[in-house]
């Protein structure tokens, strides 16, 4: 190791801006994920397979699927997000990048927000894009498919944001996966209710703007509060390791 580098010892005052740091976190997560595309594909395959179980396990009748379709898709999406949450901080925790993240001189909750958004782009967004195909397979009609995608688009970021809290709390614990589900599923219920309820209302021809606005309010609430809880939970989990 050469030491020809002369190191200046000026006290560093100028810090990297928070936006730059957030972007760096976001880009790194995306880059890492795309180096292992199979991991990206797995939640999607899971989503498709769970949806397939319903016609096989309950009934392939058009009337049933039309009635239950939005619920089936929402439950499947919820489960596949849940499945992917364990990875959100686990790898970073194991290789030590999480320690370095916590020690970055920016507000931690904003860096956590960047990570949650990256998680959504990698899991939630593909689900939204895949939903129309599955929507057709469960015989949802034209307008319902569009509304379903819209609810998923607003709802899945909430799932990522709330899930991040659970992932941070269970970091480094044995059987973290099951525990994570226990903690998070009750908190997902409102999103599920409004997600499916809105689609059902749309299929009956009722106006849905109000429900969509309410889901938007959920998203705003999750965006403002969840990163704080996740950041606090991360600090606690790291303190314990």
């Amino acid at each position, binding site marked *: 190791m050469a030491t020809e580098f002369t190191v200046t010892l000026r006290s560093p005052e100028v810090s990297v801006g928070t936006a730059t740091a957030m972007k760096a976190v976001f880009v790194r997560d995306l880059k890492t994920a795309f180096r292992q595309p199979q991991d990206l594909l797995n939640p999607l395959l899971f989503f498709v397979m769970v949806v397939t179980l319903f016609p096989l396990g309950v009934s392939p009748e058009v009337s049933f699927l039309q009635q239950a379709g939005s619920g089936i898709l929402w439950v499947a999406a919820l489960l596949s997000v849940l499945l992917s949450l364990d990875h959100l901080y686990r790898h970073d925790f194991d290789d030590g990048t999480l320690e370095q993240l916590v020690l970055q001189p920016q507000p931690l909750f904003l860096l956590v927000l960047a990570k949650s958004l990256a998680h959504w782009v990698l899991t939630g967004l593909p689900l939204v894009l895949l939903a129309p195909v599955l929507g057709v397979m469960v015989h949802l009609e034209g307008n319902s498919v569009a509304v379903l995608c819209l609810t998923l688009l607003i709802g899945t970021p909430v799932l990522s944001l*709330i899930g991040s*809290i659970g992932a941070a*709390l*269970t970091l480094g*614990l*044995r*059987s973290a996966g099951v*525990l994570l589900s*226990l*903690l998070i*599923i*009750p*908190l997902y*219920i*409102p999103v599920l*209710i*409004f997600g499916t*309820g809105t689609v*059902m*209302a749309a299929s009956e021809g009722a106006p849905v703007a109000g429900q969509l606005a309410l889901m938007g309010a*959920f998203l705003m*609430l999750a965006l403002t*509060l969840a990163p704080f*809880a996740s950041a*606090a*939970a991360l600090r*606690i*989990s790291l*303190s*314990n390791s």
Partner: protein
Amino acid sequence: MWQIFHKLGSPKWFFGIASTLMPWLLWVGVALLVAGLGWGLAFAPQDYLQGNSYRIIFIHVPSAFLAQSVYIMMAVAGLVTLVWRMKLADVFVKAVAPVGAVLTFLALFTGAVWGKPTWGTWWIWDARLTSMLILLFLYFGVIALGAAISDEKSSARAVAVLVLVGVVNIPIIKYSVEWWNTLHQPATFKLTEKPSMPAEMWVPLLLSVLGLYLIFGWLACLRMQTEILVREGRTRWVQQLVQARGD
């Protein structure tokens, strides 16, 4: 001011206060509960619609009521844990979480028993029962997380974060479930809506609620004392206490 606060947080101090308080909590609580239940079950008038079966509300309503307040108390204690790092707050959360879960279960169970003669089925996806079921899930989460983390301080703080996240969600969950309920079962009979309940009904109900609160206070003190003895087993005052009791 700060000294008082610290004193309040001292397990030793609490242990003493709790010992003097507990007999009062227990006996007044039992007296109130016996009076409330006796009055409610034996003397209050019949409901003109449901006959005698409504009388289970004298158990159902107090336990449901308390189950929800216990979660809110836990959230307050969680905030204290996070902000002031007070040990006693965590002792409280750990001690009462199972009690809250049992109360929630009791509310669900009595609700189901009530449902049988009222709706003809043990379980109905009524808004109130469903919310209670989700509350039970929240309690399970708190208990499971607390048990999974071995380090006492980390466990205290992680549970505190979870309880606070839960308490923010409770109103949202309640609202969503109520909306969901109107979507699926318009105009069903609701457990709580008791328009113009006569005094002969609500006074005993109030007595039972108060009685159950006091008994809960006693149980909380008892469980907290046990928890304190386990945690502080190595300190001198606990060892002296154990010796004194042993002699």
